[in-house]
C-alpha cells in the first residue's frame, strides 16, 4: 500500500508539473514578445535603474525615501487614477504596464497587465523592466517593499484633497521628465477650478447626502477625497463624521434632510433619470424632501479618483446643483464632458 501511495504521489506531481509547464510556456510566448523586443535596450535601462549614475533621491508622498533614475522611460502604473493621469499628460508611450482595473481611457486596457491593484505580481513587474513604478496608498506595503528590495524605484502618491491631486499630477510629470506638460495640464485644471469657484463664491453650499451604497447605507466622512471634491462643486455633505465610510440609519437621513442626494456611477446621463425613479420606488426614500423635489444628482465615479477626470465630475455636479449659475453654457458643457470622459 505504501509503494502505491508513493507512485501515486510522484505521478500526480509530475503530471501537475507538466501541465502547468505547458500552460506556462504557452502564455510565456505571448507575454515574452513585448518585453523581449525591448530586450537589449531595456537591459541597459535596467542597469541604469540601479543606483549608479544619474539618479536622485527624494521623499515620496507617503514619506518614504526613494531613489529615482534621472532618465525615466519605462513606467508602470499600479492604480487606475495614475494611468489616467499619465494619459492626460500625453505620456502614454512611456507606460509599459498597468493593472487589470485600468480602463480609463479605453486604450489603457491594451497595455500589458501586472495584476490587480491590491496584489500585483512582482514577477510581472520585473519582467517589464520598469525604471519607475507609480503606486498609491491602495497598493499593499508589501508590494512596495518587495520592489524596493529588488532595486526598482517605487514612488507612492497620496492625494487627500483636490489640490493634493494637482500636486501629485505635477510630481508625476516631473518624475517622468515632462515638467512643461505637467505645468500645462495643472494650469488648465486649476483654471477650471478657479472659474467654478468664481461663479460659486456667493452661493451658499447645497447640503447633500453622498450615497456610496444604499443597503446598508454608507456615506462619506469629512476627511475623504470626495468630501473635498464636493466642496469645489459648491456642495457640502450633511454628514460630519471622522470615519471614512460611516454607516447611517435611515432615521438619521430623515433628520438631516439633505437638499440633494448624490450618487456616483460609471455611466452618467441616462442614469440620472433612472436613479430618481429607483429612489421614488423605495418606500423609505420616496418621502424625503429631496426625492419628492426630484433632487437626485448622478455624477461620474471619477469623483473618487484623484485624476484629471475628476474636474469634469466636479463641474458636472456644480451644474446640476446650481443650474441658475450656468444656464447659458449648459449644453456646450454637457457635450464636452461626454467626449472627454470617453463614453
Amino acid at each position: 500500500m505504501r509503494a502505491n501511495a508513493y507512485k501515486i504521489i510522484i505521478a500526480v506531481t509530475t503530471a501537475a508539473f507538466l501541465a502547468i509547464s505547458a500552460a506556462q510556456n504557452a502564455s510565456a510566448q505571448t507575454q515574452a514578445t513585448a518585453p523581449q523586443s525591448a530586450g537589449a535596450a531595456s537591459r541597459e535601462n535596467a542597469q541604469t535603474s540601479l543606483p549608479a549614475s544619474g539618479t536622485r533621491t527624494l521623499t515620496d508622498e507617503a514619506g518614504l525615501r526613494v531613489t529615482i533614475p534621472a532618465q525615466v522611460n519605462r513606467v508602470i502604473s499600479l492604480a487606475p487614477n495614475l494611468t489616467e493621469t499619465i494619459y492626460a499628460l500625453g505620456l502614454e508611450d512611456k507606460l509599459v504596464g498597468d493593472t487589470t482595473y485600468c480602463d480609463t481611457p479605453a486604450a489603457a486596457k491594451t497595455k500589458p497587465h501586472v495584476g490587480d491593484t491590491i496584489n500585483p505580481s512582482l514577477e510581472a513587474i520585473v519582467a517589464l523592466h520598469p525604471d519607475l513604478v507609480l503606486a498609491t496608498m491602495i497598493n499593499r506595503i508589501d508590494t512596495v517593499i518587495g520592489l524596493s528590495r529588488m532595486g526598482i524605484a517605487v514612488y507612492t502618491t497620496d492625494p487627500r484633497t483636490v489640490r493634493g491631486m494637482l500636486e501629485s499630477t505635477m510630481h508625476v510629470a516631473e518624475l517622468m521628465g515632462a515638467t512643461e506638460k505637467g505645468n500645462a495640464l495643472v494650469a488648465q485644471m486649476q483654471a477650471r477650478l478657479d472659474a467654478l469657484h468664481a461663479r460659486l463664491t456667493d452661493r451658499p453650499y447645497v447640503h447633500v447626502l453622498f450615497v456610496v451604497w444604499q443597503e446598508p447605507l454608507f456615506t462619506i466622512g469629512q476627511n475623504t477625497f470626495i468630501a473635498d471634491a464636493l466642496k469645489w462643486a459648491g456642495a457640502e455633505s450633511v454628514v460630519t463624521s471622522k470615519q471614512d465610510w460611516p454607516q447611517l440609519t435611515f432615521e438619521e437621513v430623515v433628520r438631516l434632510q439633505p437638499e440633494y442626494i448624490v450618487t456616483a456611477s460609471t455611466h452618467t446621463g441616462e442614469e440620472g433619470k433612472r436613479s430618481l425613479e429607483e429612489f421614488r420606488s423605495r418606500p423609505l426614500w420616496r418621502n424625503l424632501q429631496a426625492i419628492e423635489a426630484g433632487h437626485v444628482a448622478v455624477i461620474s465615479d471619477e469623483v473618487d479618483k484623484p485624476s484629471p477626470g475628476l474636474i469634469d465630475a466636479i463641474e458636472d455636479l456644480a451644474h446640476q446643483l446650481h443650474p441658475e449659475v450656468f444656464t447659458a453654457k449648459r449644453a456646450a458643457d454637457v457635450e464636452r464632458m461626454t467626449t472627454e470622459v470617453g463614453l
Partner: protein
Amino acid sequence: MRPLTPRRILWICAGLTCLLFVAVLISLRMGAYPISVQDIAMTLFRGAMGRRDEIPPDFWSVVFVIRLPRILLGILVGASLAVAGAGFQALLRNPLADPYVLGVSSGAALGAIVSLVIAPRTPGAIQAAAFVGAALTVAGVYFLGRRGGQLDSATLLLAGIVMASFLSAAIMFLITTLSGHDLLRGMAFWLMGDLASPPPIQDVWKWFGFLFIIFFVAAGAIYTTSSDLNMILSGEQEARHLGVNVNRVKLVVYISASVLTGLAVSVSGAIGYVGLLVPHVMRMIFGTDYRLLIPTSVLGGAIAIVLADTLARTVMGPTELPVGAMTALAGAPVFIYLMRRRVR
C-alpha cells in the same frame, strides 16, 4: 511483530524529502517571469558560490527575492501547521481538531487588525502584533481550559471555541467601526492566508534562520513526547497507569503546538485545511504512530503548501491568489473524501 525503528523513520523521511525537493524545483520554475530550469540552476549555483555579480539582476530578483523566500516561508508554515494540527488532535482527542480550534488565529487576526489601524505602513508590525495576539489568546485559553489545575481536553476545547467566537465578534466590531478601504483590503489577504509578505528585515536569511530555530525547538519539543502521545491516544487513564506523566505531556504539547500555530499565523495569516488534513493523510499512508507521524507531517505539510502556493500564483496569472484560497479549494474535497472513508 515489526515495531517502528529509527531506520524506518529515516528512510521514509528521505523519500518525502526527495518529494519536497521536487516540489521546490517545480515552484522555482513556475511564475509570471519566464525563466528556464538551466537559468534557475545557474542562478542558485552562482548565488551559493557568492558570485552574485555574474548573475543577471532580473534572475537574482526573481529567484532570490521573489520566489525562494516565498518557498522557504511556505515550507516553514506548512510544516508548522501540520505538526501543530497533529499535536492538537492528540491533545484534544479529536480527529477534527485543527491548529485554529483554540482560537489562536482569531487572536492573531485581532492583533493584525490593531496593527493595521495603528501602524499600517510599518514593516514587521503585522507579524509582531499578530504573534502578540496569538500569545495572549493561548494564555487566556490555557487558564480557561484548566480543570482542577490540569489541562482537560473537553474543557480546553470549549474554552478555545468560546475564545474564538469572542475574538471574532471583536474583529467584526472593529472592522465595522474602523471601516476604511485600506484596512479591509489588507485584512482580506491576511485572513485567507498569504505568503507574499516580504520579511520585515533586510537580511532575508537571518529572518528565516530565526523562524526556523523557533520551529525546530517547538517541533522538537512535541517530538520528544511522541511516545507519550501514542499512549495517551489509547486512553488517558491507561496512559497514567503505565507511567506517562500525562499532565506534563499535555502542557508541553499545548505550548509547543500553540507556538507553532502562532508562528505560522503571524507570518502568513490563517491558511486553512493544512493543519487538519496533512496529519490525516499521513496517518492513512504511514500509520498512527506519532514517532513517525510528526516527521512525515513536517514534510507533508511543507510539500502541500509549496505546491498550493505555486498553483495560487500561477493558475490565474498575472493575478496572484492567496494560498489560503488554494488550500481551501483543494482541501474541502479531500476532507469530504476522508470523512467518508475510515481512517486507517
